[in-house]
């Protein structure tokens, strides 16, 4: 479904080329939980940005359903992110002036999905905190709202970039399990440096210095 073909992402570092990703090739398959494991600075986030169309590869190609992301204009790429992708970031970013449920609805701008947002938050154990503002929630609760937002609208790929980084281990595992349990037919791509978070992953690829160390 989502294919990375020999994609590289190069940054300029004092005149020298710095490869955040070097000729990475991999495929995200329908409905799988793909773990990407690597130490800090190995290029995990960079790879995720390439796959989700937030960054354009310096060379190589990313295709979704056979269509190259680089061939799309900004608006179509944005629309792809809105409709087909879901995101959970390292930090639980929420809009401070919106309640939990309204933050979830932001991911589904066509409206009319209050029931699904309520269901998601209920499944995430936030049934009695739907109307809390972010500053009235704990860090773990905020990240669970972010999980609900990522799952809203049944995206086909959910990207999670160290979603557990701001949580303790127990809460981290809980969030990953919830993501995995509630993703429905969507594929989950999660990057982390912590292998214990990937216990339920269908597949794990290792990233070292921007390169996939073991072919999958």
């Amino acid at each position: 479904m989502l294919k990375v073909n020999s994609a590289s992402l190069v940054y300029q570092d004092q005149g020298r080329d710095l490869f955040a990703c070097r000729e990475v090739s991999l495929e995200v398959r329908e409905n799988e939980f793909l773990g990407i494991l690597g130490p800090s600075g190995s290029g995990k986030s960079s790879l995720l940005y390439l796959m989700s169309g937030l960054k354009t590869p310096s060379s190589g190609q990313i295709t979704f359903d056979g269509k190259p992301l680089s061939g799309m204009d900004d608006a179509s790429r944005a629309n792809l992110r809105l409709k087909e992708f879901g995101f959970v970031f390292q930090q639980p970013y929420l809009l401070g002036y919106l309640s939990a449920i309204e933050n979830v609805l932001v991911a589904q701008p066509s409206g009319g999905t209050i029931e699904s947002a309520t269901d998601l938050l209920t499944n995430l154990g936030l049934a009695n905190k739907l109307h809390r503002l972010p500053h009235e929630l704990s860090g773990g609760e905020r990240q669970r709202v972010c999980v609900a937002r990522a799952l809203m609208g049944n995206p086909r790929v959910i990207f999670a970039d160290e979603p557990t980084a701001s949580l303790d281990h127990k809460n981290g595992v809980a969030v990953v399990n919830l993501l995995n349990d509630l993703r429905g037919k969507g594929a989950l791509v999660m990057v982390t440096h912590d292998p214990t978070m990937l216990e339920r992953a269908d597949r794990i690829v290792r990233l070292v210095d921007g390169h996939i160390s073991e072919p999958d």
Partner: protein
Amino acid sequence: MSVRSVDPPAAKTSTGRRVLTRPLAATTYLLRNAGKSIPLTAVIVLAVMLVAGIISMINSIPLSIRVIYNYSREFTGITPRGDAAKTQPILDEIKKKSPIPIERIIVCRTTATVVQSIVGKWPFYIAGLEQNDLQYYLDRQGSKSLEGRLPAAGKPEAVISRPVAQNLGLKLGSELLGPEKDDGFSPNSVKVVGIADTERWVMLTSIEYLQDFHFPPIDIGILCAPTPAEQSKLDLWAEKYFKGRPVAVLAYHQVEKDTNDMFATLYQILNVVIGTLVLVITTMMGMLMNIYQSQRLVEFGLLQALGYTKKQLLSRVVIETVLVVVFGWLLGLVAAYGLLNVAKRTLMDPKAFALNVLDPVAYAYSIPLPIAILIVAIATVVLRFRKFDPIGVVERRIV
């Protein structure tokens, strides 16, 4: 597209609480961040109120001049120069030569006193008329009724109009002119015996009294045309006809012109002041907007990462800005109107000073404010968005 909608539709959850189904509607941010939108609006309100208020007050000065001397719309004044005996021959000549019909020719004498204005004393003429001209003159000045009576021939008596009575604080029996008065001297104490109910400023006495006790001994001709249009034509004709001759023609449009000339420089200064004020306020608003929008970079980065386009976010910010600025401007106009009404009632009306609380020029002067603020605010946001990278937010490289 949801982010463009202005009015957030709301629905209820099973728990019965209101939820915005379109949480990114422009009004949501403004209403839920009142701590930011209220000061922004307040600055605009105050600025608009200040500009409209200052202009209205300044405009009230030339307006007062026009209002006070409005009585001269009703006639064309004719005075001989150099030879006091020439009045009657000139009037006879006009009767014969005028192509414009003349309803009545009044012969009068005048003496001067002063009225009060917000910028000090202004000269005002008391006309002495013959008995059968007094009522005609009052009617012509729009008098609806007369409290008291008309001045008797040769007696130290005067009739004044309501605004004059208010302005000078006079009642029936009060002294209008007198031997002790520097500004309105007369060897006898001239008492108010009548107050005419008209908006026009009028002071009348009998011609006989002025002939007996006042200088200069020059009769003035007052030519009254049947209609205002014909009066204007008569003004122009008389000015042209007597050009180069020792005859002074007094017409209302000269008052207009003199007033405009008198205030031309003041208005130039005012334009510079208002221009500077707009500049200062716009810069301030630009800086405020810049700060507020900077505080929202995480929001913009997050939304972009989630799949909103820069264009959508930009149009949302533009709608928010337009709402604040237009609302602030309208509220400012209402506030200015309220403030001017209070000023009119407490400061101006008691002295019959003119003030137009709905002065279109004053309100028009406030228009550059919202426009300039809008341009600066939108330019600020556009510049910010141009080099804006959502990754930076997600990676916490910018805050």
